[in-house]
């Protein structure tokens, strides 16, 4: 279950960030922020190769004692960062991948909305509901 989900734009500012309210949200924001460096590092590591060859799913970015941070990058350099609770039954990689896939699909739906200007904060209810479902998924 995701404790915090964030969508980061290409310029590394958040388009959407949401965490479980019970927790200290600022901590998650900070974790997401620091994870951006790792994301960039992973991107640049494969940067030489064509973007097509680079996989979108970045995998575990870095673990902390309580949480694990996963990353996912789209071809337009929009990053999804997910923080999951380590205490939960360890989510398999496939589950994380599927969650990111759902995120990506929802994000493309948001982009399809002509009233959404790229770079705006994401205020789509469908997106919200999808993220909510992810966050309470494995409670």
């Amino acid at each position, binding site marked *: 279950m995701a404790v915090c989900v964030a969508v980061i734009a290409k*310029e590394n500012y958040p388009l959407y960030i949401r965490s479980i309210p019970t927790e200290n949200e600022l901590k998650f924001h900070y974790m997401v922020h620091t994870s951006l460096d790792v994301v960039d590092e992973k991107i640049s590591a494969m940067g030489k190769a064509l973007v097509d060859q680079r996989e979108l799913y970045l995998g575990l970015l870095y673990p902390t004692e309580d949480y694990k941070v996963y990353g996912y990058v789209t071809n337009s350099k929009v990053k999804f960062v997910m923080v999951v609770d380590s205490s939960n039954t360890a989510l398999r990689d496939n589950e994380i991948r599927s969650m990111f896939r759902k995120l990506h699909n929802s994000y493309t739906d948001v982009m*399809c*909305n002509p*009233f959404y200007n790229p*770079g705006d904060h994401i205020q789509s209810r469908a997106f919200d509901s999808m993220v909510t479902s992810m966050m309470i998924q494995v409670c």
Partner: protein
Amino acid sequence: MMSKTDADIRFGNPAELHGAKVQIPYLITEKNTFKRMDDEDKQQETQSPTMSPLASPPSSPPHYQRVPLSHGYSKLRSSTEQMHPAPYEARQPLVQPEGPSSGAPGAKPPRHQASLIRSFSVEREPHDNNSNYPDEPWRITEEQREYYVNQFRSLQPDPSSFISGSVAKNFFTKSKLSIPELSYIWELSDADCDGALTLPEFCAAFHLIVARKNGYPLPEGLPPTLQPEYLQAAFPKPKRECTLFDSYSESMPANQQPRDLNRMEKLSIKDMADFPVPAQDVTSDDKQEQNKTRLEQNKIRLALKSTADEALPKDMSEDPATSKDSNSLKARPRSRSYSSTSIEEAMKRGEDPPTPPPRPQKTHSRASSLDLNKVFQPSVPATKSGLLPPPPALPPRPCPSQMRKLKHTGLSKSAKISHHNVNSECSAQPKPPTQLPNFGDFRLQKQSEQASEAEIHPQLNRAPSQAADSSPTKKDIPYSQPPSKPIRRKLRPENPAPESQEPSSTVGGAASAVTGKPHTAVQKQSSKQKKAIQTAIRKNKEANAVLARLNSELQQQLKEVHQERIALENQLEQLRPVTVL
């Protein structure tokens, strides 16, 4: 029934307030109405009135709504008879069922009350046939659907195809709803999330916008009546209400069938009804009938009024869209377009007029060949030359002495190029003062085409002066405009000339057009032919120089415009908070 009520109210309260904008007051009224309905008849409505965070119920004065229902109720009954024709007054009674302040423009509250009351009373009638669909506000009435379909066609001629996202965005933005709300509406209506709207999706989105404008909070999810599948079933024969409602009735639960049938009947009646009809419907007991007739009347009134108020182009734009409909329907959609969601209509209409203006610019800026620009522009920057290279060319200006030569040469050349009328004509002509700008022109022109060339000279003189006058103004005017003006101005002076010149030579040959006195040409015509050629060559060279100069000037202007554009884009970039790219 509620839908009808909604429609009725929506369409029927168009000109309540005689403000400049019919739509706004009507919208306010609508909001009052609907809010009231929401508050008081939640039980009847399954829609979630308070859910949407985006929903901000209009701040309609609630006290309006509180006013006596019973009072309005009875009045509503009595008012049903009022709905008759009387062109303008009819609207008032329609709007104000009780007609307390009959037609008083200032009596908005009573009207609001009236509309509210009416809606209320209508709702309350348990025996209403068409009322009380669980999701009534989200049901698209027949008139609405036709209106939506027409709007769809105006955007996308092929009803089975898509409206692209950008087109739809521009269209819906005209409704002046906030972007988040529009975004949410899009989210609801674009079921397949493909960034384009099919006809059912478009109707759903439109209906949501209409509802939102009328004060309904947006639903959490797409109501079943707005689902594309549901709407798709309705579309095959939008005009065939009977068939339509048959399908409806089949799909709807049994208890709704009678409502459907009633609705169908009413709609069919309404469809049959033409403008003056309403009176007939009044006889029916059903309020829905009356509402429909009211609706009709209102639409008609609105159409009439709006046609008067709004620019004709709007009508024109609407007409083609509705041309496919039958006559009665044709009239109705037009009026509907005015009456319903008039705000949107006004906006869309408002969009239409602006388009024409650019056209002349277009013709100048793009469509028209550069030749035209060159033809007419040179006058702007180059007052000296003052001539339009093609037709008149340089000659006349330089010096009178040359004129003589030119006259000869021009005459001769014109003889070559044109109909060889020079000789006869020249000989025939007396010695008119060719120097005379206008008079000479016309006189000469009358006599012969050749004379027109003689005219060219004075015309050229005139044109340059005009050009000189216009050039400063033109320069001030935006780049795109000057061309049209000079064109017009040039055309006038040239009209006499070009007409005659065309046969001779519109463009290049005109260089030699500057002619002199015919009689002199006649004398030395034959001998001067060679000289004429040389002169023509020289003229052409001069024309080339002028054109080159013009070209450079145009290039400069182009650069300036580019720079301006870049500056504006930079500003835009700076103002815009972030951009992905």
